[in-house]
């Protein structure tokens, strides 16, 4: 197998030609997105360069404290991102449940994946820990964001049906069942759908990266299958925890709906 082609500075610069072409197109068509495209490109470049240096440092100075700190920052950023990306106003108890579900769902999936499926040693090896945590946390973040929006939207827009169910003697769990199921479905569907096109419509990023870095496609595929199953597990665990606990925040201890008009 050939070695990896090391990109020269001029080759990197050439890749930015795509952005120049994009800027040219949006300007020619009078679409006012030049600023966003430029800012996003610059942000992406700086963020990735910094990440590269940080990863080099972490890989050369293997320390459990560093690994745990990185995971903590990832989790904090993901949870904050869910709060800000949600279109609806979130109550304090619901925010607590989002944070708990993310932490418990992703960390337990991550530990199982690394310690049982991959069986890494030492347990805090950042070369495995950080990229895999990134994939599990990132996908769970997207899933739970979709679930939060669907659950809150369903409970608020259909509150008259929820209240009618309570009047007919339903428990809060029965009254919220449809909206809980819809939220779980909305959250898990993109991950399930992405498995369908994988390998045919697109080659996943991790696998592409491994193949480009010279690893056998078979090994890359083994890892990709494992990580995809890990992602599905993490998203499902995170979202099921969230919906099963989250709907309860819409009711008080007297099984009364506490959504105001």
């Amino acid at each position, binding site marked *: 197998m050939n070695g990896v082609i090391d990109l020269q500075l001029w080759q990197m610069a050439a890749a930015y030609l795509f952005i120049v072409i994009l800027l040219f197109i949006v300007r020619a068509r009078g679409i006012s997105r030049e600023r966003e495209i430029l800012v996003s490109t610059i942000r992406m470049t700086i963020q990735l360069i910094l990440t590269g240096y940080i990863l080099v440092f972490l890989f050369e100075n293997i320390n459990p404290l560093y690994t745990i700190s990185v995971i903590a920052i990832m989790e904090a950023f993901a949870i904050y991102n869910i709060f800000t990306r949600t279109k609806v106003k979130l109550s304090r108890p619901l925010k607590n449940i989002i944070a708990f579900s993310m932490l418990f769902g992703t960390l337990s999936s991550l530990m199982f994946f690394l310690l049982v499926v991959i069986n890494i040693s030492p347990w805090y090896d950042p070369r495995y820990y950080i990229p895999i945590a990134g994939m599990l946390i990132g996908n769970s973040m997207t899933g739970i964001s979709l679930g939060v929006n669907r659950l809150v939207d369903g409970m608020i827009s259909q509150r*008259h*049906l929820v*209240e*009618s*169910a*309570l*009047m*007919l*003697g*339903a*428990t809060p769990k*029965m*009254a919220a069942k449809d909206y809980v199921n819809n939220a779980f479905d909305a959250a898990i569907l993109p991950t399930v759908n992405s498995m369908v096109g994988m390998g045919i419509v697109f080659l996943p990023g991790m696998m592409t990266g491994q193949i480009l870095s010279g690893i056998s496609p078979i090994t890359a595929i083994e890892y990709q299958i494992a990580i995809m199953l890990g992602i599905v597990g993490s998203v499902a665990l995170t979202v099921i925890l969230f919906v099963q606990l989250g709907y309860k925040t819409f009711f008080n201890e*007297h*099984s*009364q*709906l506490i959504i105001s008009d």
Partner: protein
Amino acid sequence: MFLLKDVKYKDILYIKDLEIPRKKITSIVGESGSGKSTLLKLLNKLISCDTGDVFYNNQPLSEIDSVELRRNVVLLPQSPSIFSGSIKDNLLIGLKFSEKPLASDKKLVEVLKLVKLNKELSEYANNLSGGEKQRLAIGRVLLLEPEVLLLDEPSSALDEDTENMIIMALVNYTREKNKTLIMITHSKNVAYQFSDRIIEIKKGTVIN
């Protein structure tokens, strides 16, 4: 059956002392916005009073499990919700929510007759008119056979003839089955004609 003592709910309802008798038909009358619907919601524990106590069978509502209470004391709001699905689905959903045995099609048809709704069980419920939906919702709560029926203007979407027929059917049902009926009505005629007791509410307080 129900006893309210020094009950206050927000700035909507203040009741010093009120008793609602068991196995009788009680009508609640009063201007709109006077707190009638709030009173029914308190009895069904869909809301709780800020101060004071509501007793059901001599037990404070705060000590009664809300879900259990609502399975015995069923509230039908003024604009009842219709769930997606057929008329049959809508009739059965109350039994499912209250975890009671499901009724046979024969019984469902009898209930439709009782509420004067001449429709097939398989018809899509959301296609019904406002008045038909209201009758379907009445049928749904009758199937539950609760101890207490709380009805918030059960005939508000009906014409006068249908209104009388439905109220008659509800009154007969209550007397035959020995149940308690508490209903809000905008019609003093209905209240005087069918009730054992009338409660008049004005600006959140019982005046009569």
